[in-house]
Structures are given as C-alpha cells and as structure tokens.
C-alpha cells in the first residue's frame, strides 16, 4: 500500500512536468529563449528586436545562464515543465535530450517552409539530424581550430611569420612544427629547447601550451594532428557504432604528443591541472603558442601585454591540414506552449537577417551561413585580427565534422581517465585498447 502510494507520488511528480501544452495558434505570444554566453547576448537581443519588428505578435524574452549553470538549470526546467520554448544547444548534449523526447523535431517544418539547407556551410546542418532522420536544429554558427602565437616570442626565437603558415607535422620526428615548438621553448637560464644544455625541468616558456588531455574529443588538444594523420574518430559520423581510439594512427599521434611533454616542450599534466587555464597562462607569456578554437579569438586579443597572431594548424602526413568542424544551433522544447512562434524564431535565428546582418558584424563567432562568413572575416579584420587560418579550413575542405554520438558522456568519462593516465606517463598508449573495447561495448 505504502509503496504504491510512493510510486504514484513519483509518477505524479514526473508527469506534472510532461503535460503537452495546448496547441498555440498564431496569436500574440512571448517566446522564452535561453543562451549561455553573456558576450553574445547583445547581438541576439538585436536579432530579437528585429524579429519582433517583423512579427509584432511575437516577443522574445532572453534569459542568460552561464555555462556552469546552464545544463543543470535546463534539466531541472525540463523535469518541472518550465523549460524555455527555445534554447541554444550544444552537440554534446542534444542527442540525449532528443532521445528522451524533450525536443521538438522540425523536419516537417523545414520542408514545409522550404528552408534552403545549402545556404549553411557544408555539413553543419547534418549535425542536427538524429539517427532516425529527425532534424532538431538549424545551424547558427561554426568553429574551427588554429594556432595562436605570441609575435614577440617568435621574433626572439628568430622565426619568420611566413614560416608559420607552411609548417608540416608527422608522428615520427614532429617535422618543422616540432622544430618551431622546440625553438620557442626557453628554460630559466635562457637556453632554448633545441640547444644543448636545455633544462627540461625548469622551463620558463613552453613552446606549446596544453589545456587538458582532451579526453575522447581533443578538439583543440590533438584532433588537428590525429586527423591530419588520416585518423577518424569512428566508423561513421554522425552516429557511429565503432570507435577508433585503439587505431595505430591514433596511438602514434598520442605517443608523439607525450614525447613533447617528456622533452619539456609542452607542460605536464601535473602542471596544467595546477593552472587556472590556457588563456591566462598564455597571457602571462608562459606559452609561446597554443592551439585554440575560433570562439575564444577575441579573448586572446583582449589580453594586455602580449601581441598575438594566427597561424593555420600544421600539414600532416596526409598532405593536408585538418580541423574539427563544430557549431551550435537552437533547439525547441517538446513542451512549448507555442510551437508556431518558437519555429518562427528559430527560423529567424537561422536566417541571413539575423546571422549576416547582425551576428557577423559583432566579430565574436562565425555565423553558419556561407555568405555571412566573408562579412564576419571583415568584421574581425576591422578589429585587427586576420582570421583566415580559421576560415581556410572551410575553403580548402579540410574540416571534419565533430563526432556526434550516443553515450557521449560515458565515452568522455572513459577517455578522460585513459588520456590523463597516458599523458601523465602512468600508462602507455596500449591502455587505449581496453578503453576502446569498453566504449564499443556501449553500442552493443
């Protein structure tokens, strides 16, 4: 008796949040919209104002939660039925939400309204379609990876900026890329990494910074090496069923990265876990160069005391460069009271009117629409930043879609442990074999 009461209570609790709202007409409506980046709130407020002007019956109310709170708050909101109508979403999160029926598929709406998916950078739109062929989002922006370096340190090392755009890399001796990293590394006595007598235990400036071990993603840590070495994350993407972390190409790349730590050119795991972060450390002149994602560009240029420039990621054994290609989109909650209004807003956010005319001009992110990229490049150039090393990946076709997969959080947990351990020299690269087996077991 008692238990059935409890179960009934639990059910009530859960169901209370899940009731589908009444189908809204096209009457006046307020759309609740969430995002996490405060720096982007002004530009989306501008989009919301433009949207309201074009559709006076709809008003958009923007709420911002910082990244650290965003997903907890959103989960709680879903459980209690107070989720926003539309929210900015992330590739690592939306598959879970979609599979739990919390998102409104927009497949039919896209067809009905003839949204031209070819206006987005190639591949981006595919990231938001799940295994069962349902689409949940339209791309709003994209990001790629490049090298950011300290121009003064480069000059001191006697390296010319032109050399930076022609660097090559291979997992055997590291190529010209490793030579530059070694040259840029300086110990406390002023000896460089490629000079005899270099003291790898007392490094003043590391040639290359590192943020984390990269877990199973390594977007800015190692993906540009592994993929220019011909490695792919999995058998297919999106929605793989077998991962390739035990592949020899992956192993040799990780071995090479570990060797840089051993040589003292890259900080050890102990050091990077004892640090506030790559950006601040670079700002203090402790890193001569770093590999970074385009979304952080402005933060680097805002640092006082260091002058920076961009260089493309190195050319690998495949003869090509490589960068992950990633981006955000807006999702609609399944429980929205007003699907029409929500869809209208999502469509507007994914249109040139918002992306090209407003977002591109702010020079914070690259909008997903092809024609808006040039606009954004210009806006960045006006701010004194030549972002071609980011956008050249798109022009040259060297982008690789970010892995979209079920069980991503579990994969991350397994790979964090494994990669941490390898980069700390606690285990060798063969630890990737059992890890990969465990990951593949998740897919049955």
């Amino acid at each position, binding site marked *: 008796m008692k238990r059935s009461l409890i179960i009934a209570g639990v059910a009530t609790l859960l169901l209370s949040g899940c009731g589908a709202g009444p189908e809204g007409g096209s009457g006046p409506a307020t759309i609740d919209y969430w995002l996490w980046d405060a720096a982007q709130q002004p530009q989306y407020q501008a989009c919301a104002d433009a949207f309201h002007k074009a559709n006076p019956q709809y008003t958009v109310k923007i709420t911002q939660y910082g990244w650290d709170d965003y*997903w907890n708050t959103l989960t709680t909101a*879903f459980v209690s039925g107070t989720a926003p109508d539309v929210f900015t979403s992330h590739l690592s999160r939306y598959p879970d939400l979609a599979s739990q029926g919390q998102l409104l598929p927009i497949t039919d709406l896209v067809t009905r309204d003839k949204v031209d998916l070819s206006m987005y950078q190639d591949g981006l739109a595919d990231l938001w379609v799940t295994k069962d062929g349902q689409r949940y989002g339209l791309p709003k922006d994209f990001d790629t990876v490049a090298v950011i370096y300290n121009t003064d340190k480069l000059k001191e090392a006697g390296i010319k900026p032109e050399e930076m755009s022609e660097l090559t890399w291979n997992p055997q001796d590291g190529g010209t890329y490793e030579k530059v990293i070694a040259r840029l590394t300086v110990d406390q006595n002023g000896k460089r990494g490629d000079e005899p007598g270099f003291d790898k235990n007392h490094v003043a400036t590391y040639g290359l910074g590192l943020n984390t071990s990269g877990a199973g993603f390594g977007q800015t840590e190692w993906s540009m090496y592994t993929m220019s070495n011909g490695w792919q994350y999995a058998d297919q993407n999106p929605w793989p069923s077998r991962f390739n972390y035990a592949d020899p190409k992956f192993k040799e790349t990780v071995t090479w990265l570990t060797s840089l730590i051993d040589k003292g050119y890259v900080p050890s795991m102990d*050091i990077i876990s004892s*640090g506030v972060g790559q950006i601040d450390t670079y700002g203090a002149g402790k890193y001569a160069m770093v590999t970074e994602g385009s979304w952080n560009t402005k933060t680097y240029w805002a640092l006082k005391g260091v002058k920076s420039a961009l260089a493309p990621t190195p050319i690998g054994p495949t003869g090509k460069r490589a960068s992950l290609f990633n981006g955000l989109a807006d999702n609609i909650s399944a429980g929205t009271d007003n699907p029409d209004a929500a869809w209208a807003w999502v469509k507007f956010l994914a249109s040139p009117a918002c992306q090209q005319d407003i977002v591109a001009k702010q020079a914070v992110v690259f909008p997903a629409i092809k024609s808006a990229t040039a606009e954004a490049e210009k806006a960045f150039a006006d701010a004194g930043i030549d972002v071609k090393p980011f956008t050249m990946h798109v022009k040259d076709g060297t982008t690789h879609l970010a892995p979209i997969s079920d069980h991503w959080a579990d994969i991350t*947990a397994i790979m964090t442990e494994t990669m941490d351990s390898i980069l700390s020299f606690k285990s060798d690269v063969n630890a990737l074999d059992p890890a990969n087996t465990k990951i593949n077991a998740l897919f049955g």
Partner: protein
Amino acid sequence: MTSDTVRAAPRPTAGTVPDKAPPRRRRLGDLPIAIVFVLPAAIGFAVFYVWPAIRGAYLSLTKYNVLTPPRFIGLENYRQLFGDHLFWNALKVTAEYVVLNIGTQTVISMVLAVLLHRLTRSMVVRGIVLLPYLVANVVVALVWFWMLDFQLGVVNQVIEWLGFDRVAFFGADLGIATIAMINTWRHMGYTALLIFAGLLMIPPSVYEAAAIDGASEWRTFWRVTLPLLRPVMALVMVLSVIGSFQVFDTVAVTTGGGPINATRVIYFYIYDMAFNRFNFGYAAALSSVLFVLLAGIAYLQLRLSRAGESDLKGA
C-alpha cells in the same frame, strides 16, 4: 569543591541517554506540549527532507535518466556499484580528504577557539577569523587556484624565490591535500566559532575553582575544558565529517576530479552521474550508500562521545 562543580555541569546531559524505564504514569510525559514545539520544524522536515529522501531511495532501484519515467530494476544499480572501480576509488579519495580536512581543521579550530577565549575579547579579531566563511565556496576555490597556480601563482613565485622548485599543488600527488587545505582555510573560523560558543557556556566558576586548586592552564584545558566541551565537540565532529564527505564545489572549479581521478571525490562522482551522464538511478544508489555510510559514522561518533561522558562521571 572543584570536583563537585565539574561533575555538576554535565549532569543534565544524562537526559540524552534514553530513559531506560520511564515510570508508567509518565508515559506520555510532556507529549502534548512537545508536539506543539516540534510541529513547525516537523512540517519543514517532512516536506523538504523526508519526501525527497524516500523518493531518492526509490529511484536508486530504478533506471532513471531524469527526463523519462523511471523503470524499476531492483538491486541492479547496487550490483553494478560494487564492481565499479571508480566508486571504490572515489571512496578512497574521499576518505583521504576527510582525514586530512578534519585533522587539520579540528586541531586548528580548537586552538583558535581557546586562544580567542583566553586572550582577547576583540570583536575585530573574532570577525577576521570568520571572514573566509563569508566568501562562497566557489570563489574561495578560485582565489586559491590563482594563488597556487604552477606558473602564475604568487605562492609558487615565493617558493621559487626561496630557492625551491615550484610545486604542482593540484597535481596527482598533492591535489587532494591542497583541496583539503583550502576548505580548512574556509571553515576554520566557522568551526572555531562553534567551539567558542561552547566555551562561553562553561560557567566561569569552573575556571575559578580550577585556579584556586592551582591547576595550570594546560591541565585545566585537558581536565576541565575539554570534558565540558564534549557535547559541542560531538556536534562539531559530526557536522565536519558529514560536511567534508559532501565536498564538491572546490573540486568542480579546480581539478574537475583529475588528474586521473586523483581528486574524484564521491560527491563529485554522484553529481557527474546525475547531471552530466543522466544516470540518475545510479547516482541515487551511490547517494544511498553514502547516506548509510555517513549515518553509520555519525552513530559511532555519537556513541563514542557519550561513552566518554559516562567515564568522566565515574572518575
């Protein structure tokens, strides 16, 4: 005279021991009035603690990913838990943390409380001691993270200036000790204040009597102060142990559990399971085990501190 006073004070605590054989006529005792006194708290307790706890215990028997209804799977989560090396690792790491944190915190706070009590009545001093507690956990962790940074931190600069090698405070070896130190810093004033409040409850006549007997400060502390502090110390220890088992924020903003799980404490693991991996049923099972563990420890602590009291009386 002295011994009389000393004995007189703890006597009321005898009331904590359940009355073995209450006289039949007083079976109800003060029950009606007691209900009135307890009722408001009991309502808050039932609604905001008991119900969620029961719900949590039920969820630990289900597969539940928060957003779709739970599915009953019996003891499967618990079976999985015993074979989960991360769970055992988290317990080990948490135990290390608790020992380090409680050890340093209790000793420092006790010394601090006694010094505050014996040396000064200054509100300024007292206020300064409590200052760290005014700052939120997350901010405390961030400030120390900056100061202890391997490459940028002021502490490491001083260490280097003194001629030593820089220290990786949040590395695999020292991480958990550093986190324990940071939380000791935040809580020592708070704990000292709890003990201090206990010291204020000790009648001055006790000290006067001890002084007349010619007891030294040291002896008075061990023979008079400490025994009389037992109820408060029991409280402090129980609270600190429970609090330190639930350490979470500091880890989340500094090491994030790494490197290689060296700082993945149990509560951080639970949180990660629930909100990042949507494995709420499993997180509930982990929480339930933690709950039982804590209840056991608290029970032992209370038992031990009570046993101590009766020893004193027998002396």
